[in-house]
């Protein structure tokens, strides 16, 4: 057998084609108190070859359960998991060409770094002569060359994570599953490892499916973000899609700061619509195809609202009361109340800091107003 270099490994699936298809899988648990918990509720998802996909959602929304179902550690109650078109829903974990970087890495404490990385090759019957070079290459890839003889207990958290990555990547899985890989690292290291993880993924071109509850991490690392909430998929899209065109109130609120202003659609036509707010004022949007009379929520990012100085006018203005204002140097962070809804505004630091309780006028551009209806 010829050693296949990890970097140029000939992946079976073409870049962008889906390697894993998840079809409407559901999973319920019975909690210790006997109550039923729906961890996954008809989740459907495609994972593309060679891409970085992130599962983003609050704690307890079913991310780990979904990952474990793909790895083979949870039996879904309903639905199918396809790998390259073949049904692997009932395949035991040790027969799936999928590997996991566990949340706390789960490295074997009785084996050295090298032995940990060699483990998967040895147990799957890879020819002995090719194991050494492949292990060395994998360690080189995660920049741990020279630490092969260390014991696991002698490594720092960041180094342990690299061993876990090498241990999985050396097997050239169809998909690498990562469960909150940064959770156990301190803040500075986390930033560094985000860059590192992205570099690795670019280099090996293996599909990564990475779980996180940190929206910044999700936006910065991924090609595709899957937002989950309460066991359901809320939205699948590029980081830009998710941020700029949220599909639901939940996504808009979870991904980044946003002003969420509830109202009712009035005067909708092909060029846009207006939302009537609780205080009788109106907010304009360029979003078309809204049903008049239905409830909807306007979504405005904090940097898209401008504080209007006295005497200045703008075509589109909202009026609100200041709850608090914080001077941040280059910016002022304003928490205001507009028509009973909390609104965050980041405005130019040169402006005067308004006092709490003061009435402020906020200018906006209807093109920046996103609308979600659920």
């Amino acid at each position, binding site marked *: 057998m010829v050693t296949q270099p990890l970097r140029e490994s000939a992946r079976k699936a073409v870049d962008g084609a889906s390697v894993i298809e998840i079809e409407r899988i559901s999973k319920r648990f019975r909690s210790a108190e006997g109550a039923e918990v729906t961890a996954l509720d008809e989740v459907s998802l495609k994972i593309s070859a060679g891409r970085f996909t992130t599962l983003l959602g609050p704690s307890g929304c079913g991310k780990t359960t979904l990952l474990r179902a793909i790895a083979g550690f949870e039996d879904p109650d309903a639905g199918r998991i396809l790998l390259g078109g073949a049904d692997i829903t009932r395949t*035991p974990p040790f027969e799936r060409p999928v590997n996991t970087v566990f949340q706390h890495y789960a490295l074997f404490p009785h084996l050295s770094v090298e032995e940990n990385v060699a483990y998967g090759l040895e147990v799957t019957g890879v020819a002995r002569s090719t194991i050494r070079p492949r292990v060395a290459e994998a360690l080189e890839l995660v920049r741990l060359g020279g630490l092969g003889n260390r014991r696991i207990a002698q490594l720092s958290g960041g180094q342990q994570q690299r061993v876990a990555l090498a241990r*999985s990547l050396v097997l050239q899985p169809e998909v690498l599953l990562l469960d909150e890989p940064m959770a156990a690292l301190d803040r500075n290291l986390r930033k560094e490892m985000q860059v590192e993880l992205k570099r690795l993924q670019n280099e090996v071109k293996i599909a990564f499916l990475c779980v996180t509850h940190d929206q910044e991490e999700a936006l910065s690392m991924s090609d595709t973000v899957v937002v989950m909430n309460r066991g359901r998929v809320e939205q699948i899209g590029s980081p830009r899609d998710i941020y700029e065109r949220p599909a639901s109130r939940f996504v808009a609120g979870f991904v980044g700061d946003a002003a969420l202003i509830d109202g009712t659609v009035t005067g909708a036509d092909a060029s846009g619509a207006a939302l009537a707010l609780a205080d009788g004022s109106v907010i304009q949007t360029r979003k078309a195809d809204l049903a008049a009379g239905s409830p909807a929520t306007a979504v405005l990012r904090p940097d898209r609202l401008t504080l209007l100085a006295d005497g200045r006018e703008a075509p589109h203005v909202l009026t609100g009361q200041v709850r608090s204002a914080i001077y941040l140097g280059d910016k002022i962070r304003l928490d205001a109340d507009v028509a009973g809804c909390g609104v965050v505004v980041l405005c130019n630091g040169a402006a005067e800091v308004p006092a709490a309780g003061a009435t402020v006028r906020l200018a906006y551009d209807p093109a920046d107003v996103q609308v979600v209806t659920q």
Partner: protein
Amino acid sequence: MSATPPISRAERRRRQSGLALLTPSALLLACLFLVPLGLVTVYSVMTRGTYGGVVWQIDFDSYARIFGLPNEDELRDWDFIYYGVFLRTAVIAGLTALIALVVGYPAAWFIARAPRRRRSALLLLITLPFFVNALVRIYAWMLILRSDGLANNILLWLGLIKEPLTLIYTPGAIILSMVYQYLPFMVLPLYASIEKLDPRLVEASFDLGAARLTTFRRVIVPLTWPGIAAGLVLTFVPAFGNFIAPTLIGGSKQLQVGTLLAQAFLSARDWPFGAAVSTILGVIVLVALIFMVRSDRGAAGKGARS
């Protein structure tokens, strides 16, 4: 391997206070264990007294007898009978330990993986036999295994056999009763080891492509090895010296080390000979303990490379 790091002063102080805490148990051990042990060793090289006890005159003849050397004064020729006794006892004790391991491991696994609140109840059940006097338990086994006992009656009633089987007074019966008797000594250390085993490591092994048996051999056994070694020693050692089971269940048909000992002290009144048997038994126990410590360090250090 890495070099031993220099010991800091705080570390040295910590070790010293650790030693201080050991003092009471060390003293207790010295009085109740080392002194009698020394006494037995001294007795073993003395001359036999006529009505028990010893005459204070050095004589290595007890060892000569055990090792089968001839002695012209006693008209004794070469005789290797005691090798057979030790060997048979070792086989029976070894089988007892191995069977206890095979039976005990799944039980310990089951308890360690049961819901936390149910574990202490299950552990209590495992130790339940300890609440009954050892002799009573042995008599219970005799009642079960006798030719007109419970086991034979059930087999006859089920029609599986026509004639009662010879169950009691066989090596199998001895092993069965000892496995029963020492099973808690196997299950408890195994439980302690298995409970400490992180289930995610088992999942990681599956994830990396190792099927169940490979995972058991390469991850579960090495990581629970301290419990396995402790269990083996804790069952092998008392099984080796046991004299109740060979006497009552085995019917003393074949001599074992335990029976040999009891006879030497109680009926033959040959204290030096009994003491010599005890000393050799002590050496075997010591070897078993060294095996445990050694293999433990081996498993922790090198991993299962097989």
